[in-house]
């Protein structure tokens, strides 16, 4: 068995999935509205800080130090967590992590767990694994709950139900939420109240909670979760047993480093100066909070990604979603087209790396399509709080895809021919003359239809008719 991929099995390639998404009028409207709003707010929140660029550079530097010294910081974290009464587990991949968590839940004698919103557990498909093991997992983040109740898939890192508007949410609640009133309206306050009543019952009965981690401080073994709703805080404090699944790269050396990210993350993510709830815990504290704490450190393709000098910068990611909100591709296709829990620009560089080595051919073609799901406009790099040069990584990963193509693949042949022509001025001038006859197809200075593959262009756009004389020919005639 190959490594458990981070994608949803059976997902089509990006261009195919995008075609379906683009035709969804409701989705397009919801996303344009939501991303437009958060984009404007983020700009204002970031604009308040005169040292924003220095903060970004600090965030980048701290993450790069962590990635270069992971062994040091992770063993330091393990020692500190253990010293404070926690138990640390190491998971090579999704299957191992799921097995560890299921074993811990069973040992606690629970059949139902409450969950704090977590990308790591979504990445490894923990809910499905628990379900298969007879344990039901209840998402307590409002947007995750909407996705879970709707038997849907997430489409955004921060707001997984961003593709849903409030009337759709009302319909989901009415149909699936135990105890929801059939006369529930689509007023946000009423929807929130319904979710609150539903979740409160779960918080009070759950024996086990499962969370992810935004950061973990190696020096003191402190794990950090930031959130907006307070539901995470309920999970982190009420149940007897707390299990945290955390990607290896989330460790930071010290509290001073944490301070940088607690400025970068909320402003980039929710456009807030500070997020409403920041929970920090160090092992277990007798008489206060969970009596048992387990930290599962997850690799799942991360150390393999670390080996790539260009690609490894994707591991700096703090999951803020700023790149999604500014991405013109994401804004139109939504997140599900990316076939994984990591959508948008960061997904296009993270998913192919974490999932590399998959033995599922469908997944492999999806992974190959992702680095091309970008016009390289650079808006993502501009906003990334840890300065991940996403366009650079996209191009690098495109190079990997190209390197795997056979030399006789049509695109490879065409690109080789193009460079053979263009490296020689003589051949290039000759090729320019060959375009001349295209003028015969032109009406009023434009060509409306060309055969495949040029039809991919002309299906929606005209091609200008080539001029009677190229500039170089004109220069030679008049100035040469």
């Amino acid at each position, binding site marked *: 068995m190959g490594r458990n991929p981070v994608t949803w099995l059976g997902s089509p390639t*990006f261009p195919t999935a995008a075609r379906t998404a683009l035709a969804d009028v409701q989705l397009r409207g919801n996303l344009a509205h939501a991303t437009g709003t958060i984009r404007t707010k983020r700009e204002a929140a970031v604009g308040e800080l005169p040292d924003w660029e220095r903060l970004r550079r600090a965030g980048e530097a701290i993450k790069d130090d962590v990635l270069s010294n992971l062994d040091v910081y992770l063993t330091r974290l393990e020692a500190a967590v253990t010293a404070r009464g926690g138990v640390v587990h190491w998971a090579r991949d999704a299957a191992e992590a799921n097995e560890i968590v299921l074993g811990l839940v069973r040992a606690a004698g629970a059949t139902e767990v409450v969950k704090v919103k977590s990308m790591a557990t979504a990445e490894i498909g923990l809910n499905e694994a628990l379900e298969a093991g007879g344990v039901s997992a209840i998402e307590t983040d409002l947007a995750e709950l909407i996705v879970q109740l709707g038997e849907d898939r997430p489409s955004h890192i921060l707001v997984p139900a961003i593709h849903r508007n409030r009337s759709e949410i009302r319909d989901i609640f009415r149909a699936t939420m135990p105890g929801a009133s059939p006369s529930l309206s689509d007023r946000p306050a009423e929807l929130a109240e319904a979710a609150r009543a539903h979740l409160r019952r779960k918080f009070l009965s759950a024996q086990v909670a499962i969370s992810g981690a935004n950061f973990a401080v190696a020096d003191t073994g402190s794990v950090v979760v930031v959130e907006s709703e307070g539901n995470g805080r309920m999970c982190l404090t009420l149940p007897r047993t707390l299990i945290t699944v955390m990607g290896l790269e989330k460790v930071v050396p010290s509290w001073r480093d944490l301070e940088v990210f607690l400025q970068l993350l909320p402003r980039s993510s929710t456009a807030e100066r500070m997020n409403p709830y920041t929970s920090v815990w160090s092992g277990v504290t007798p008489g206060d909070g969970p009596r048992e704490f387990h930290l599962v450190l997850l690799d799942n393709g991360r150390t393999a990604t670390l080996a790539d000098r260009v690609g490894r910068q994707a591991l700096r990611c703090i999951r803020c979603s700023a790149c999604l909100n500014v991405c013109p591709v994401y804004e139109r296709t939504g997140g599900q087209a990316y076939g994984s829990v990591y959508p948008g620009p960061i997904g296009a560089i993270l998913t192919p790396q974490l999932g590399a080595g998959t033995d599922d051919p469908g997944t492999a073609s999806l992974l190959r399509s992702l680095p091309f799901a970008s*016009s390289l406009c650079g808006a993502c790099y501009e906003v990334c709080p840890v300065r991940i040069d996403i366009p650079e990584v996209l191009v690098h990963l495109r190079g990997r895809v190209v390197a795997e193509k056979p030399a006789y693949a049509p695109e490879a042949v065409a690109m080789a021919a193009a460079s053979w022509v263009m*490296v020689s001025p003589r051949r290039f001038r000759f090729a320019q003359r060959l375009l001349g006859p295209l003028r015969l197809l032109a009406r009023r200075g434009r060509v409306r239809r060309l055969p495949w593959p040029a039809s*991919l262009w002309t299906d929606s756009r005209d091609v200008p008719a080539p001029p009677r004389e*190229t*500039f170089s020919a004109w220069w030679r005639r008049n100035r040469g």
Partner: protein
Amino acid sequence: MTTRVALMATCLTDTFFPDTARAVVRLLERLGCTVEFPPAQTCCGQMHYNTGYRRQATTLARHTARTFADYDAVVAPSGSCAGMVRDLYPGLHRSTVRVAGRTYELSEFLVDVLGVEDVGAYFPHRVTYHPTCHSLRMLGVGEKPLRLLRAVRGLELVELPAARSCCGFGGTFALKNADTSTAMLADKMRNVLDTGARVLTAGDNSCLMHIGGGLTRLNTGVRTLHLAEILASTEEEPWVATP
């Protein structure tokens, strides 16, 4: 002393938009430059680079570096190609480092090197400006093209809504993800039409070919024109497209 400038026409402009290159020559000569066109120039290699064909891109970059080796200033009417040379050439090969530091996009060259904003142009039309992604985010041209346009006599500049949003071209992206590209184009066109402008201008013929290809397909009556052609136009000699 006159400034000696090498014109990097770019393969697309040379082949499809010779009027733009002629406009650059006319404009720079009017501002006292001596313009040369090294005839060996072909393509900067950006399409290969961005599609993942780094080896072939490097071959083309080395050819380009050789072609422009003798010039202190290389000017391209394209933020995208100038961005390729300036941002990415240094990482490709030791022989492609030097040309990177000497290459300018047209509006940068006018404002930063020649130190002019009013180039003496006259263009009595309602115009809107699309800031192309690479000029904006790789080169950081900022307001320079707008400052040049604001100084054009007779020109009514109208602001383009959501101007900084990509038009969806993206080189081979327009083919590999044609549907998404077209959706981006549709929004860009809607914003252009909302301005009521008769002319859409930009510093890149690649983006203009994309947006213009959509605008003519829908017979919108809005034309696309490279910034250089507007700046080259004067009251005495209004710019006329070659038939």
